[in-house]
């Protein structure tokens, strides 16, 4: 009876020890197993020598020495383990192996689908170079469904959700093509900008397919967006190098590959990379430290300094803000950047950590952006009431108000956080709950604005 209890207790201690070992990046599963076998050998010997189970375990662990020392020795032999590798297909465990292999296959299918979709309009006589307007409007409609399909497949989305996703992409396709928008019309530019945003949030719906209402999943989607963007830019840079070499080498032997590059490599590559970037983020989630929060850490102080300097200069020179046509868009973008800095530091923050200097810095950043934006808004509303409104102005103003509302409440929550009045989770929930607002606004601009402004 007691011997059996001792055995159970021993197993529990081994389990705990294994847990500690497996948390060490230097020690892999096979090392843990090898060391456990060693520990068990040691314990068995001590038990044979007459020690009680718990004593034997203690002595054996003590003999092995501290895990820190052990890890350090392992790290000297296996230094590559600290540079976490992106393992595309796990070799060691058969379960993960099947999973990542199926992922790889699904990714390849979706990439092929995206690449083919981009070329389908060519069957109807549309040319990637000459019909730029069509492709600008439809880029999102052609490529993003494949990313959404990959994510929905990976999350095993329900049929109902699949139908919703398909319907939304269908609405997007209709909105992109049904309105008679002239090449010079403002609505054309607005749809080109807003439709991809609206469709990206549909991708987000696919991303959170396994738990649509959970704030944590939405925050994951925000992280996904940042990482996806970083990967996409990196892939684009690599694609640029590939293109340059293809052109250079083929021209050296008298063949001009420009047509192939403009008609096939660039469009298909750009569409395929949308899915590849998504797959990479999914595959490496825990492998590499996320880069977007790192960039945020670097640039939050710099942006804060720049905004504060701008405010000081504005006060000192007493020059009003010159509200040019582009000014409102510029300040919209500024708010987007500030919101991005806020979002990505929220995404990487430990929810339970006490308020730090960085939170105060962030408060300063948000407040200074708010002050600047209010000054701009005051200047611009005068302009709009004077000259009447256009689609551009209405869209820019609407966005400004949406971002202003978000940042104002964020500033309030940040202030409460710094004063330790509210928990960090409130700020997180506020941001994740706000995501549908962006989606709604983007759809309004895409669907309602063109008829509202007579396709101007």
């Amino acid at each position: 009876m007691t011997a059996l209890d001792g055995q159970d207790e021993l197993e529990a201690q081994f389990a705990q020890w294994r847990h500690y070992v497996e948390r060490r990046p230097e020690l892999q599963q096979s090392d843990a197993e090898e060391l456990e076998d060693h520990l068990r050998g040691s314990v068995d010997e001590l038990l044979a020598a007459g020690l009680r189970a718990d004593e034997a375990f203690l002595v054996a662990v003590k003999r092995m020495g501290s895990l820190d020392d052990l890890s350090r020795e392992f790290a000297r032999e296996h230094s590559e383990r600290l540079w976490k590798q992106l393992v595309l297909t796990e070799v060691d465990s058969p379960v993960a192996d099947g999973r990542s292999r199926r992922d790889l296959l699904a990714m390849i299918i979706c990439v092929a689908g995206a690449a083919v979709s981009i070329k389908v309009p060519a069957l109807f006589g549309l040319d990637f170079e000459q019909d730029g307007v069509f492709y600008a409007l439809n880029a999102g409609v052609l490529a993003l469904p494949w990313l959404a399909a990959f994510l929905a497949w990976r999350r095993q989305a329900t049929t109902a959700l699949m139908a919703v996703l398909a319907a939304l992409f269908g609405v997007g396709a209709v909105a992109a093509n049904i309105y008679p928008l002239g090449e010079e019309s403002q609505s054309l530019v607005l749809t080109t900008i807003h439709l991809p945003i609206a469709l990206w949030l549909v991708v987000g719906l696919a991303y959170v397919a396994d738990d649509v209402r959970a704030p944590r999943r939405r925050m994951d989607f925000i992280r996904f967006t940042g990482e996806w963007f970083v990967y996409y830019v990196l892939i684009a840079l690599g694609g640029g190098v590939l293109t340059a070499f293809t052109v250079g080498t083929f021209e050296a032997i008298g063949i001009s590959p420009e047509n192939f590059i403009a008609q096939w490599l660039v469009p298909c590559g750009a569409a395929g990379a949308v899915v590849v970037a998504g797959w990479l983020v999914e595959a490496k989630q825990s492998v590499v430290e996320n880069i977007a929060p790192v960039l945020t850490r670097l640039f939050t102080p710099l942006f804060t300094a720049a905004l504060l300097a701008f405010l000081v200069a504005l006060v000192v020179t007493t020059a009003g803000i010159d509200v040019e046509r582009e000014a409102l868009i510029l300040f919209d973008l500024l708010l987007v950047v500030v919101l991005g800095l806020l979002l990505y530091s929220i995404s990487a923050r430990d929810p339970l950590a006490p308020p730090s200097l960085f939170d105060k810095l962030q408060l300063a950043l948000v407040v200074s952006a708010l002050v600047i934006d209010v000054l701009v808004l005051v200047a611009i509303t005068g302009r709009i009431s004077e000259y009447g409104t256009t689609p551009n102005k209405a869209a820019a103003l609407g966005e400004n108000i949406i971002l202003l509302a978000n940042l104002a409440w964020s500033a309030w929550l940040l202030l409460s956080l710094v004063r330790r009045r509210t928990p960090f989770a409130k700020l997180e929930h506020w941001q994740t709950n706000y995501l549908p607002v962006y989606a709604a606004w983007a759809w309004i601009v895409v669907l309602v604005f063109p008829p509202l402004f007579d396709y101007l």
Partner: protein
Amino acid sequence: MRVTKDLVAASATPMVLGILVEGDSYGYAILRRINELSGGELDWTEGLLYPLLHRLERLGHVESSWQSVTGERRRKYYRITDSGLAELAEQRRQWDTVVDALKEIWLGSGDSRPLTLIPLGGRA
């Protein structure tokens, strides 16, 4: 008396390869064997042994395979390879040279001074 860390480290490779020549073995048994051979004077740790085994495996001097022992447990057995045998021969040649030279100095002909005259503990 304990053998210094440097000396343990320097002799580690021929020691492990030599033990594996006796037959395939696994980490815990290798450590036990070293203890046995040195009468407990060689201070080997797991942090020395396992990374060393992994390095020898990477260099191709040993091969490893998982074999199941009692119940659920699996054990990683190591076996010396041909390249390991060659390495052992080379190391042995070097060690013989070192040991012979040391013996020559300490016990060699023409030196009749007894060992005890060599000051061992400084000026004490």
